[in-house]
């Protein structure tokens, strides 16, 4: 595995591909490799592209990648599609729209399935992005699954989040609902050659005017999680970032150079205002919580006799115990391993 790390850092695409598989499968080897790669990360600008299914995310990623290649930047692409909740399988079809990038050694595209994660990206996406970062790509584009209203996990990985809309998807009330529109650093109305594009742009602009920018900032940082995070508003006196609303037609490159410029302005804003440091610290804090949560759960399950959980489920099923009480009893065994788990018969 350390050979793989060496070849990856030396620029081997095969080594990168194989490492990504290890990371996706969460092998113990991947954990060691990620440790070695972590010091090499932090150089890429990570752009999240999210939005409803069929709004043209893949085409937009394709157009953006071409634009960055024209600037001489190397581009890594992570394209996420959903895993079937029934079979665990997936059809990953984002490459279909990225054919033009084939044959370019400065581009690396990797398709990923969500594997049960519900936030719009896979659990391993963050690590996959880190590996690409360590491999030296200047720009990393992360395309989420076709997102509905609340798949907002991408903001924790991306430096700039682009939310893609298309004409005719909803009225102005959709536009003021909570969720995905709030995480946008840049809003794009793609398929702008279709009727209704101007109305969609107007609805989105109206939404931005209604909202209080400072409040938006806080929600974006909390992104709906109940974990207590202190919101540092260290640029209160400075002007806040107002997401621009752009029109694009990705399939013929219309509006793409404007989009690249908007992403660049956002990059400059978060760097110059110092927001980037605060945000990254908060996201790392959230990541730590999340990993701790997983590790504690795993350790807990290891200490639990295999039958204990099954017994507990039977008791709950028989309505002898309510689920929360069951949790409390299971937790009590952590402090007193000898304690027998018994259902409350009353």
């Amino acid at each position, binding site marked *: 595995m350390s050979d793989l790390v060496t070849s990856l850092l030396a620029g081997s*695409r095969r080594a990168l591909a194989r490492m990504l598989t290890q990371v996706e499968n969460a092998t113990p080897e991947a954990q060691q490799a990620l440790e070695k790669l972590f010091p090499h990360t932090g150089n890429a600008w990570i752009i999240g592209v999210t939005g409803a299914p069929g709004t043209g995310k893949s085409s937009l990623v394709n157009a953006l990648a071409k634009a960055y290649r024209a600037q001489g930047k190397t581009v890594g692409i992570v394209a996420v599609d959903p895993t079937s909740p029934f079979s665990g399988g997936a059809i990953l079809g984002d490459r*279909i729209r990225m054919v033009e990038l084939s044959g370019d050694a400065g581009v690396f595209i990797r398709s990923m399935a969500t594997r049960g994660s519900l936030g719009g990206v896979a659990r391993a996406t963050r690590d996959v992005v880190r590996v690409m970062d360590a491999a030296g790509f200047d720009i990393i584009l992360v395309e989420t699954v076709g997102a509905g209203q609340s798949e907002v996990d991408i903001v924790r990985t991306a430096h700039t989040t682009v939310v893609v809309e298309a004409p005719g998807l909803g009225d102005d009330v959709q536009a003021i609902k909570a969720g995905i529109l709030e995480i946008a650093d840049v809003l794009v109305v793609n398929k702008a050659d279709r009727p209704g594009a101007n109305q969609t742009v107007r609805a989105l602009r109206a939404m931005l005017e209604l909202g209080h920018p400072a409040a938006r900032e806080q929600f974006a940082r909390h992104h709906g999680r109940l974990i207590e995070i202190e919101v540092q508003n260290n640029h209160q006196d400075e002007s806040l970032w107002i997401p621009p609303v752009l029109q694009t037609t990705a399939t013929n490159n219309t509006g793409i150079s404007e989009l690249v410029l908007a992403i660049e302005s956002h990059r400059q804003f978060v760097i110059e205002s110092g927001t980037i440091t605060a945000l990254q610290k908060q996201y790392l804090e959230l990541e730590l919580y999340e990993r701790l949560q997983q590790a504690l759960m795993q350790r807990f399950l290891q200490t639990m006799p295999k039958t204990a959980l099954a017994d507990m489920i039977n008791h709950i099923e028989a309505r002898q115990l309510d689920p929360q009480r069951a949790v409390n009893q299971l937790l009590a065994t952590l402090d007193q391993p000898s304690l027998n788990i018994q259902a409350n018969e009353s």
Partner: protein
Amino acid sequence: MTVRTARVLIAKPGLDGHDRGAKVIARALRDAGMEVIYTGLRQTPEMIAEAALQEDVDVVGLSILSGAHMTLVPRVREAMNKVELNDVPILVGGIIPDEDRDTLLTLGVVGVFGPGTTTDEIRDFIHTLVVKKDTNE
């Protein structure tokens, strides 16, 4: 915790524009719990090799209905070997005459599936390949 999900590339090389068969296979493999990367129509051998490399797939499945399989398949194999994917097996599906089948199997193809093959057969075949790969590693 190790989770192993088979990854399969389904590709259509050359100029034929009929991909219903490829989609049926992709869907069946999805339902068998595999991750299927579908590249779309009209891929060159080099594009297929590159996708197979980047996606680190266990198996490449080629769907060819155009009759050009004797030209295309060796070129895909060659392109894959060129990027050091010699160990990644190729399956071919489509309209393949019996007399070509045996020749293809000598050209670096591990399985040829013509009309009438059930999706279960293909699923089991890929499953066996993946298990074999894992025990060798």
